[in-house]
C-alpha cells in the first residue's frame, strides 16, 4: 500500500523510514567487510602501483614507470607470462574435458555412485599445500610413486620436477586432480537435461555421438562457459603448486605469473612494482574473459533461444 509520507502522522512516518533502512542495516556488516578487506586493499594496490613502494623506506611517486619497466625492461615478466599462457593452454581444455567425462560417468545409473562422487570431489577440498607436498613425493625422480608404477610396466620415468621438459606437465597433472568442483557443476547440468530430448533423438535414429554433440553439449553450454571462465582464472592465478613444489624451477620452467608477482613483493620487496604486476594480470584475465563472452553467442544456448540451422 503506497502512502505519501507527508500525509502520515510523524510517528508512523518515522517507522516507515526506519523500515526502508532495515535491509541496509542487515547487509551493512558484509558491505563493511567488503570495503575494508577487499575493495580497500584493491584500491590501495592500484594507487601504490604508481609508486616506488619498498617494504621499508620512503615511497616515491613514479607515474607509469612500473608499467613501462614491466613491458620494456623486465625479461622475467615475459618469461612468466609465457609459462602461464602455456600452462593455461594445456590445463584449461584438459580440465574441461576430464571434468565432463567424470560427470558423464557419474550421471549414469550405477551402484555406489555417491561414494565415487565423494572420492572424485575430495581433492577439491584438500589444502593446496598438502596436495602440493603429496604430489612432490609422488613425482620424485628417484623414489617417487609414479616412477615406481611406471617401472612396473617397463617405463623409466623422467625426473618430473627437475627436468624442465616435464615439470610443467607435472604441474598440469597435479592441478587436474583438484577438478572436483567443475565436475560437480557439469553433473548438475547433465542432470537438468530433459530426458524427452534424448528419447526424441532416439526415436529419430540419432546415434550416441550425434546425441552427445547435438543435445548434450548445447544443453550444457552455459555450464561449459562458466567452467571455461573459472578454469582460465584459476590457471592464471596458479601459485600454491609452483611455490611449494618447484619454486618456479627448474630453470623457471614453472615460473608462473602469480609466483613472479609474489617474488617481486616478498623477495624483491617492491610492493609498488608487484601491485602493477597484479593489475596487469587482472587486465589480462578480464580481456580473456571478455573474448570468451564475446564468442559465447556463437556456441552457448540458453533456454528459450531460437536459432536457425
Amino acid at each position: 500500500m503506497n502512502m505519501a509520507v507527508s500525509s502520515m502522522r510523524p510517528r508512523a512516518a518515522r517507522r516507515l523510514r526506519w523500515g526502508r533502512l532495515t535491509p541496509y542495516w542487515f547487509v551493512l556488516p558484509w558491505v563493511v567487510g567488503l570495503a575494508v578487506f577487499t575493495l580497500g586493499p584493491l584500491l590501495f594496490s592500484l594507487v601504490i602501483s604508481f609508486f616506488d613502494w619498498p617494504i621499508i623506506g620512503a615511497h616515491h611517486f613514479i607515474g607509469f614507470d612500473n608499467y613501462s619497466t614491466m613491458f620494456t625492461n623486465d625479461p622475467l615478466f615475459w618469461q612468466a607470462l609465457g609459462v602461464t599462457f602455456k600452462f593455461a593452454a594445456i590445463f584449461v581444455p584438459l580440465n574441461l574435458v576430464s571434468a565432463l567425462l567424470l560427470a558423464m560417468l557419474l550421471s549414469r545409473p550405477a551402484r555406489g555412485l555417491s561414494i565415487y562422487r565423494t572420492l572424485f570431489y575430495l581433492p577439491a577440498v584438500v589444502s593446496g599445500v598438502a596436495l602440493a607436498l603429496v604430489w612432490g613425493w609422488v613425482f620424485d625422480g628417484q623414489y617417487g610413486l609414479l616412477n615406481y608404477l611406471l617401472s612396473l610396466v617397463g617405463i623409466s620415468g623422467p625426473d618430473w620436477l627437475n627436468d624442465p621438459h616435464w615439470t610443467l606437465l607435472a604441474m598440469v597433472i597435479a592441478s587436474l586432480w583438484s577438478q572436483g568442483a567443475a565436475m560437480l557443476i557439469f553433473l548438475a547440468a547433465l542432470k537438468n537435461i530433459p530426458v524427452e530430448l534424448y528419447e526424441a533423438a532416439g526415436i529419430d535414429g540419432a546415434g550416441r555421438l550425434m546425441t552427445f554433440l547435438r543435445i548434450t553439449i548445447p544443453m550444457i553450454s552455459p555450464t561449459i562457459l562458466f567452467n571455461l571462465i573459472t578454469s582460465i582464472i584459476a590457471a592464471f592465478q596458479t601459485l600454491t603448486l609452483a611455490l611449494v613444489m618447484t619454486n618456479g624451477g627448474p630453470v623457471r620452467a614453472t615460473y608462473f605469473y602469480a609466483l613472479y608477482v609474489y617474488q617481486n613483493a616478498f623477495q624483491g620487496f617492491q610492493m609498488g612494482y608487484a601491485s602493477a604486476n597484479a593489475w596487469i594480470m587482472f587486465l589480462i584475465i578480464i580481456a580473456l574473459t571478455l573474448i570468451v563472452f564475446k564468442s559465447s553467442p556463437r556456441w552457448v544456448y540458453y533456454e528459450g533461444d531460437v536459432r536457425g540451422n
Partner: protein
Amino acid sequence: MKVHKSLRVSAALAVAAAVMAPISTAVPRPAHAASTVTLRFATWDTGNLLAFEKQLTSQFEKANPSIQVQVEAYGSGFDEKMAAAFGAGDPPDVEYMWNFPAYAPGLQPLDSLIAKDASVRSLVRQFYPAILNYNRFQGKLYALPIGFTTQVIFYNKTLFRAAHLAFPKNGWTWNDFARDARLLSHPGAKQFGCALPTQPDPYDWESLIWSNGGSWVSPNGKVLKGYLNSAQNAQALDMMGGLIHSKACTLAGGNNQLAPNDLFAAGKVALEYDGDWPLAQYQAAKIDFGVVGLPAFPGKPVRDVIDQSGIAISRASHNQAAAWKFALFYASAQGQAVRLGDLPVSPSVAVNRNGLNLLSSPTYKAFYDMVPSCVNTPASSLITNWGKVDSNIQNAISSVLLGQANAQSALNDAVSVSQRYMQ
C-alpha cells in the same frame, strides 16, 4: 511497514558485532601489572630448536620479572611475515635477522649502545670477528650474532671403507673430491659419489666461487658484469656441472623434495656439501660420517662463507631498553650454552659447551677450522636487491647443473637480467 522493536534491536546487535569482531580477535595480551613490558620476539626456528629458545626466554623472564617475552615462531614463512610486519609498520620488538641490506632502515644500529657500556663491549669482543662482521651493513652493526655455520663436506665413512679409499683430510682439492666421487658412484645401485641440490643457494655457493678467485659482485657491490660472469666463476660452475654429467654426482632436492642431506642420511651418497643443519639428522640416522673442511682449487686458498643468525632490534619498537637487555642476554655465553641447535659464536663457549670442546670434537671441529677462511664479504651484504639477483644466479647455476646451458652463457644471461636491480 511496521518494524518490530525486536527487529531493530537485532539489527543494532548485528552491526555492533561486526564492528567489535576485529577488536575482539586482536592478538590477546596477557593481563599484567602496569609496569610489565611485553616484548615480541620473532624467530624462524621450530621443533627442538624452538624449545631451546623458549627455555632461554623463560630464564630471561625469571631474571627480569618486569619483562614478558612473547615468542612468535614464524617457521618457514619467516621472510614473508617479517616483510608484512615491517611493511605494515608493526614489526616485532626483537627478531632473528639475516637480510640487513633490505631491513637496515627498520633496524636499530647497535654501535652507540655497545660503545656506552664497558661490559657490553667486553661481550662483543668475545665473538669471532668474522662472524660479528656478517651483522654489519654499510659500516653499522645491526645485530648480535647468535649462531652460525660454515660450509663443510660430510663424508660417509662406511662407503669410503668399502671402496678402500682414504678419508678426506683438510688441505684436499676439488680434484680429490671429483676423483673420490667418481670412484664411489654406482648409479645402478642408486649410490652416488655426491648429491647436489637442483636449486643451490647462491649464498652458500659463493664459497666455491671465492675459492676459485671469483665473486658474484664487485667489492663495492655495484657491478655485476665482469664479476658475476667471470671466467673463474664459469670454470667453478662447469666443474660442478661436470660432476653431474659424468654421473659422479646426482641432483636432488628442489622444493620440499628429497634433498641431498636426505640421500646422505639414507646412506646413498658418499660426499655432501652443506652447513651444520643436517647434523642432528645424520646422528639420528646413525650414519658413520666424518666432517672435513672444503676442498681448495689447486694453487688457490680455500674460502668459505658463514651462514649466521643475528638478533636485531626494530627501530619501531617502543621498548628499546627491554629489547636491548633481551638481545644481550640471548647473545651472551649463557644463551649460547642453552641453544644447543646453534654453534656457539664465542670461542670461550665453544671450548666448553656442556663439557664438550667443540674446537677439537671430530664432529664440530671442521666448522670452526673454516672460520679463518671466511674473510670475504658476501654479495648479500653488498647488494640491496639481493633477493632478485640471487634468484637469477640460482637460475644460472641450475641451468648448468641440468645441462641446459654452459656456465659462461648462463652467467652472461644472469648479468643481463640482473642489471636493472643494481643501484
